[in-house]
């Protein structure tokens, strides 16, 4: 194959968004090297945001691409991957907004933080579209290793060190397990790495339901479940969330998780079509455990970051309902919920960051009486938390309704009922924070709030935080009422994705057979 024909086959245009992100990170790291740390911190965050938004715009332009497969099958830029890449890029952009002041105040270098964050974004974006085992693994590691580095970014804090070490060790072992599963897939398919080819060749060799495939499935799911922090692979989450810089936690809980879900959908649907029942069973168990444990343990938390950590485990459980039911609506509701989760969770984290920057604490009890000192922060946090809990006019409510409706349609009654119960539990602990903030009596005000500094937005790095709060506030409250475009987006994404179509069709043979018999019976009746 000569150079020209190779270039023609690569279809490089599909990774234009990723190329933009790569270019941005190169400019950030080299520019910082040239102009120095203090000078670069003035423009690097905005450049990163512009780059990420440009990537989102490039994704938008690709929406109706007729030829999504690129790099000889390594990368699949179908509608599903576009939506997930958009979610990841947006979450990174919002994370940059909230990290400017935070990183400056912790005395660490901003440009390197942004570089690593952009690399993590790049890894996540590639992971959402990778269609081949090697690509999946490399992008997964790009995401993971950048996340470990971000976790330990405040390197003089023993909590940060502990978090990074725990994350690294558990992450490395889960990567190893995932790799073992992938190598089994490679071996069982007789040397294929492309997901579609694996499924075809495994089916051809009649190994579809062999013990080897089941073991591969279990190992692969273990690796994915670590990424999305599903119980029982969640042990790292609370400690890592507590010890990491808060913007990193925000990115991990949204961007990294979204990438994990994208990987889960693509890998499980494409490579394990013959084991659909088995993986749905395993994921059902994970979803049940995540919803129960995440929401129940969150009740007992006193630290806001830990509370959000457990709540994110519970939220992952809700999202998994959409994955488990495997219907078109299920996938669409999952995407919708992830978009909603992006705004409300990042909004909540922005508020938590602002509070901890002003008071130096993230204890829930210290939030008492905040309403009287900082109404905007109180409003933002309340709206986001209520939305996370699923209170009606907000976007989280519609997300949950759609998820539960999709689950109910597909007959997962138990799962939906459990989801409803745990949602109610979650409302309790979210409301607890809101209630603490809006207490009226001055004597109930906490020490931190009594010493609350004057609200000043003109300090360096505060403006982006304000923008972040207002943006997520608006998105969380408006997107709930005007959620139709988001519904359309989610539904179109699923409808335009070939792998999900074939998956849904292949799940229906029993039904069509029944219909066929009915049709056969009907003429006889006429006779």
């Amino acid at each position: 194959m000569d150079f020209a024909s190779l270039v023609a086959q690569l279809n490089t245009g599909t990774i234009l968004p990723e190329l933009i992100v790569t270019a941005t990170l190169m400019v950030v790291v080299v520019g910082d090297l040239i102009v120095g740390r203090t000078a670069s911190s003035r423009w690097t965050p905005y450049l990163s945001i512009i780059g990420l938004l440009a990537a989102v715009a490039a994704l938008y332009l690709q929406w109706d691409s007729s030829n999504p497969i690129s790099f000889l099958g390594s990368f699949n830029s179908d509608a599903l991957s576009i939506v997930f890449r958009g979610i990841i890029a947006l979450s990174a952009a919002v994370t940059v907004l909230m990290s400017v002041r935070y990183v400056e105040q912790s005395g660490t270098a901003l440009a390197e933080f942004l570089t690593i964050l952009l690399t993590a974004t790049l890894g996540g974006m590639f992971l959402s579209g990778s269609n081949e085992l090697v690509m999946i693994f490399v992008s997964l590691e790009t995401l993971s290793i950048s996340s470990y580095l971000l976790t330990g970014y405040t390197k003089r804090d023993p909590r940060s060190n502990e978090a990074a070490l725990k994350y690294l060790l558990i992450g490395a072992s889960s990567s190893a397990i995932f790799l073992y599963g992938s190598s089994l897939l490679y071996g069982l398919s007789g040397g294929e790495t492309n997901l579609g080819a694996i499924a075809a060749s495994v089916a051809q060799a009649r190994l579809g339901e062999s013990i080897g495939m089941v073991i591969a499935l279990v190992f692969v799911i273990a690796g994915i479940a670590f990424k999305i922090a599903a119980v029982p692979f969640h042990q790292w989450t609370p400690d890592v969330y507590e010890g990491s810089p808060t913007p990193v936690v925000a990115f991990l809980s949204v961007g990294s998780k979204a990438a994990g879900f994208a990987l889960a959908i693509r890998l499980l649907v494409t490579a394990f079509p013959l084991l659909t029942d088995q993986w749905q069973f395993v994921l059902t168990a994970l979803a049940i455990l995540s919803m129960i444990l995440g929401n129940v343990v969150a009740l007992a938390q006193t630290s806001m970051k830990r509370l959000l950590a457990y709540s994110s485990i519970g939220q992952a459980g809700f999202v998994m309902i959409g994955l488990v039911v495997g219907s078109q609506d299920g996938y669409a509701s999952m995407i919708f919920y992830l978009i909603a989760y992006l705004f409300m969770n990042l909004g909540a984290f922005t508020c938590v960051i602002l509070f901890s920057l002003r008071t130096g604490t993230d204890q829930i009890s210290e939030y008492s009486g905040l309403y009287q000192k900082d109404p905007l922060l109180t409003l933002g946090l309340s709206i986001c938390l209520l939305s996370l809990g699923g209170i009606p006019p907000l976007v989280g409510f519609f997300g949950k309704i759609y998820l539960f409706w999709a689950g109910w349609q597909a007959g997962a009654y138990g799962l939906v009922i459990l989801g409803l119960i745990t949602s109610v539990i979650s409302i309790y602990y979210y409301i607890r924070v809101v209630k603490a903030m809006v207490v009226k009596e001055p004597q109930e005000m906490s020490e931190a709030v009594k010493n609350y500094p004057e609200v000043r937005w003109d300090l360096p790095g505060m403006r982006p935080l304000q923008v972040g709060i207002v943006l997520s506030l608006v998105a969380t409250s408006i997107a709930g009422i005007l959620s139709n475009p988001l519904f359309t987006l989610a539904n179109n994404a699923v409808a335009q994705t070939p792998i999900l179509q074939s998956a849904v069709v292949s799940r229906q043979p029993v039904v069509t057979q029944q219909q066929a018999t009915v049709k056969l019976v009907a003429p006889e009746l006429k006779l």
Partner: protein
Amino acid sequence: MNLAEGVQLVSLGLLSFMMLGAALGVVLLTNVVYSAFLLGGTFISAAGIYLLLNADFVATAQVLIYVGAVNVLIIFAIMLVNKRQDFAPLPKAWIRKSATAVVCLGLFSLLTTMVLVTPWNLSAEVASADSSIIEIGKHFFTDFLLPFELASVLLLMALVGAIILARREFLPEESAVAVQQPILTLPERPRELAGVTPGSPDRTIASKPSDRNK
């Protein structure tokens, strides 16, 4: 069986024995230095097995990267953290050990059964030793181009990250940041540990002033 096959069989047995022995040593020995050196032995034996499979580039790379770089770094780290610490023997440690052994044996038997039961889809083609490096190069620049290029971004970022974690920070004077948190730490105060009287600010290791500017 001719001479070559005999030599191959004997080498395979020898290498497998070395590899398993060294790997068991890595896990079971209590002296971490021995474990680290035996890890090198495991890597070398794996390289030998690759060589028997006609994968000479992989074998060479295995020695170069795993023995020459990874294992040396591991040993380096162990030597630099040369802290002898005797751990108090845990009561009823045998329960944990036997539970671990049961889990490992269970996993081992499961995987062995899987290997034996599965009708593997083996390719009859003999890998050619001479052109392996050329084949690998071709794959890198055709169907594995994207992961190959992404790996370069990954390595760049790992390089940047390693330098960030390892470099000696320039710490500004304490007075300049006295109103804020100590440098390079999280802004959130650590939680009060159980059994510690609340209200005393420098409770954890990091917030001791003497530790800040080490």
